[in-house]
């Protein structure tokens, strides 16, 4: 009898009774777990989902930014009535250039995403709730394997020990004391700290670029934009700063499209 009770308890845990649900792929390229937490300092009607991907050696997942190939982790959630889900929050990826000048921005090792869920005003977590859905992704390493995991969250978990570090990995707002940018015609010039390496990783809605492979990394950046209807830009994405002995810093870049000044005709 005790054995049967224990078996039922284990089964309920596997089915999501503890607030986490993970499904491993049959051959391990990436494994996903998700938990709902309520960190200190957030409004009482906000849950934070912590999506954690454990990526097998040499495999990578894709960022949600501008890539030449691949498919980023994408989630479809079913929420209780009047609850809403914000966009996934992504840490900075790594630039990955393959043969044929194929440029992607990817993650190796581990990827942790955050996602805010705003509950309805009358939500009572103690009465029970259910968040369900499916997370899909593509893991690649010379070959690509799609992955998928069912999501089932029914309770709130303890805040993980590395939560502060996870938050610190998210891009910060632009800081003019660290980075400066200005337009020079259709070129966005970006200057950072001395002896630092800058990398630009555009979002999907960034303006069309001339050559991200050549322009996207260096001690200073001169990112050339195509002029469409005389409007290069907008410049949207991430700028990472890497200096020896200093943790990588990541800033959000959001510069509106730039109206080019036309040359005045001679008199």
């Amino acid at each position: 009898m005790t054995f049967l009770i224990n078996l039922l308890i284990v089964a309920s845990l596997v089915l999501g009774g503890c607030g986490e649900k993970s499904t491993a792929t049959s051959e391990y390229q990436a494994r996903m777990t998700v938990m709902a937490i309520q960190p200190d300092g957030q409004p009482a009607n906000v849950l934070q989902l912590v999506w954690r991907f454990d990526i097998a050696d040499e495999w990578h997942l894709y960022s949600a930014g501008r890539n030449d190939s691949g498919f980023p982790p994408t989630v479809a959630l079913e929420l209780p009535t009047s609850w809403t889900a914000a966009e996934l929050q992504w840490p900075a990826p790594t630039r990955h250039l393959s043969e044929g000048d194929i440029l992607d921005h990817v993650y190796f090792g581990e990827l942790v995403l955050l996602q805010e869920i705003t509950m309805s005003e009358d939500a009572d977590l103690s009465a029970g709730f259910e968040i369900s859905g499916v997370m899909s992704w593509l893991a690649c390493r010379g070959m690509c394997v799609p992955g998928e995991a069912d999501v089932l969250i029914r309770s709130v978990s303890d805040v993980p020990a590395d939560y502060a570090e996870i938050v610190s990995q998210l891009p910060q707002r632009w800081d003019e004391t660290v980075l400066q940018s200005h337009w020079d015609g259709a070129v966005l010039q970006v200057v950072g700290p001395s002896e630092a390496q800058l990398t630009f990783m555009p979002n999907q809605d960034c303006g069309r670029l001339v050559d991200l492979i050549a322009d996207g990394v260096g001690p200073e950046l001169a990112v050339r934009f195509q002029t469409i209807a005389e409007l290069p830009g907008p410049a949207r994405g991430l700028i990472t700063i890497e200096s020896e002995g200093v943790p990588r810093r990541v800033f959000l870049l959001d510069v509106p499209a730039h109206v080019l000044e036309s040359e005045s005709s001679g008199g």
Partner: protein
Amino acid sequence: MSLNLNPLEVDLMRILRLVSLVALLVVMIVGTAVAELAPGEAAPAFTLVDTEGNEHSLQDYLDDGKTVVLEWFNPDCPFIKKHHKSARTMDESFAKVSAHEVVWLAINSSAPGREGAGLERNQKAHKAYEMTFPILLDSDGKVGRAYGAKTTPHMFVINPAGEVVYNGAIDDNPSPKTMGKSNYVLAALHGLMMNQKIEQASTRPYGCSVKYSK
């Protein structure tokens, strides 16, 4: 039989030889770079052999007045499997247009030893996917690089005048599993047939990266 040429003809021949040599050098240099073909640009010429040993020349098809669809292909890519196995997007699309002077060619630019490469693998895929158009092998990646093919699939539509009129994705859903709603290639072909402007002549292709040689 010997040619009797006057001095002017001899000079012209020397000039032509020099121009040809320079052109060849340019092609050799440019051939290793990866192009970004915009709609309206000339489609790079190529001649490739398919998995049955038949030769296919783009120029021959254009000379016959054909519209040519190119599909970059890797039999082991999940996006290709989506369109050839889970659904038959490509073959069904071709079936809709094949009576209208359209040729559809799959091109595999995977380098030897890389995913999806090799004659045998592609012969098996052609049969397993019940493909109604050939797979051409571009194992050194020259044609892929000339077209700027980045993903499998990556689609190009070439009009009978030899111009690229569409460059991009097959449809509007970049997921490896879910089908799209709008077929950009069929829309481009319809526009061509009706002599109408192609509304979306360029989209962002999606798929696995083309497995070029190092």
